């Protein structure tokens, strides 16, 4: 199954390099969103909590602008039925998840680098906590975005439905990640952030398990 999933991921990766649908939309959104925030702030200094919040707001909306492509592109090209015939649902989901995971990590790395360069309050005191939050947050975001992308792929108003459906599902993750990012800015020790970290780990495990269990039904309907 892994080899087949890897083949599907490789196909998506090469397809993205040739078409650049997701990369372009993500890059444009990151540039526009950060520019708007910087213009609206002006010369004022924003607090660390607001910086942490805005960091995850940009991550959330950037994910909404590009990650739906995973399944929508198959639907638009009429290849969904072919994939249903030649691969098992878990193969398809794993392939798409690996692709979205890499896309999310690259996208969020760029956002983090831009934030650290442009926002003076984006100073990480506890780097290992920030790194762990970043990794766990990205995994949760990628898993939730992939399964929601599969749900909305057959819908008519995909663009609207994707953020609307994602918001309640991603809210617990985003809120906890904002808190953990704030902890990493404050230099809070690992032990004091255990509860929030457990929430994010729990979220990732639940989302991953639920996604694999439900994807069969979503994919075949």
């Amino acid at each position, binding site marked *: 199954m892994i*080899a*087949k999933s890897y*083949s*599907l991921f*490789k*196909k998506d990766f*090469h*397809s993205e390099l*040739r*078409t650049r649908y997701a990369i372009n939309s993500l890059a444009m959104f990151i540039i526009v969103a950060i520019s708007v925030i910087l213009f609206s702030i002006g010369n004022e200094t924003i607090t660390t909590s607001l910086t942490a919040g805005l960091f995850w707001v940009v991550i959330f909306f950037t994910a909404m602008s590009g990650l739906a492509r995973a399944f929508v592109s198959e639907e638009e*090209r009429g*290849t969904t039925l*072919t*994939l249903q015939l*030649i*691969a098992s649902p878990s*193969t398809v989901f794993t*392939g798409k998840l690996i692709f979205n995971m890499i896309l999310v990590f690259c996208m969020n790395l760029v956002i983090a680098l831009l934030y650290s360069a442009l926002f003076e309050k984006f100073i990480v005191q506890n780097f290992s906590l920030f790194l762990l939050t970043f990794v766990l947050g990205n995994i949760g975001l990628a898993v939730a975005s992939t399964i929601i992308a599969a749900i909305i792929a057959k819908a008519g108003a995909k663009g609207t439905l994707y953020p609307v459906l994602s918001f309640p599902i991603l809210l617990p993750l985003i809120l906890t990640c904002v808190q953990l990012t704030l902890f990493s800015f404050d230099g809070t020790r690992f032990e004091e952030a255990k509860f929030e970290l457990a929430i994010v780990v729990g979220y990732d495990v639940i989302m991953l398990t639920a996604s694999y269990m439900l994807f069969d039904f979503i994919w075949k309907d």
Partner: protein
Amino acid sequence: MYEEFSAWENLKIFANIRGINLNEALVLSYLAKFLLENRKDDLVKTYSSGMKQRLKFIFALMHSPEVLIFDEPTSNLDEEGKKVVYEIVREEGKSKIVIIASNEVKDLELCNEVLLLEKFK
């Protein structure tokens, strides 16, 4: 089919996702039969609808299935393409089960048994 890839890349991608080794000799022979051999490295987006239709036959045949089900197999095809399809159906029909759903009289002439659905109303 993924239009941003060539026909050959598409065939390789689907073979890999299916988990089978691409039988290059067989696929090349089908490409030659379906008059696509010289265009196999061109992107599918440059193909006409008839060429895409012919390429779909190769997708269906590349893993040597035991049962072939065709729905309107000669739609979008020119006379040359239809001839190739009829030849393939005759050839595959010798050793495999071929089911064709069609309104074309010529398509039905290939069949050993014809079921008219209106009779079953």
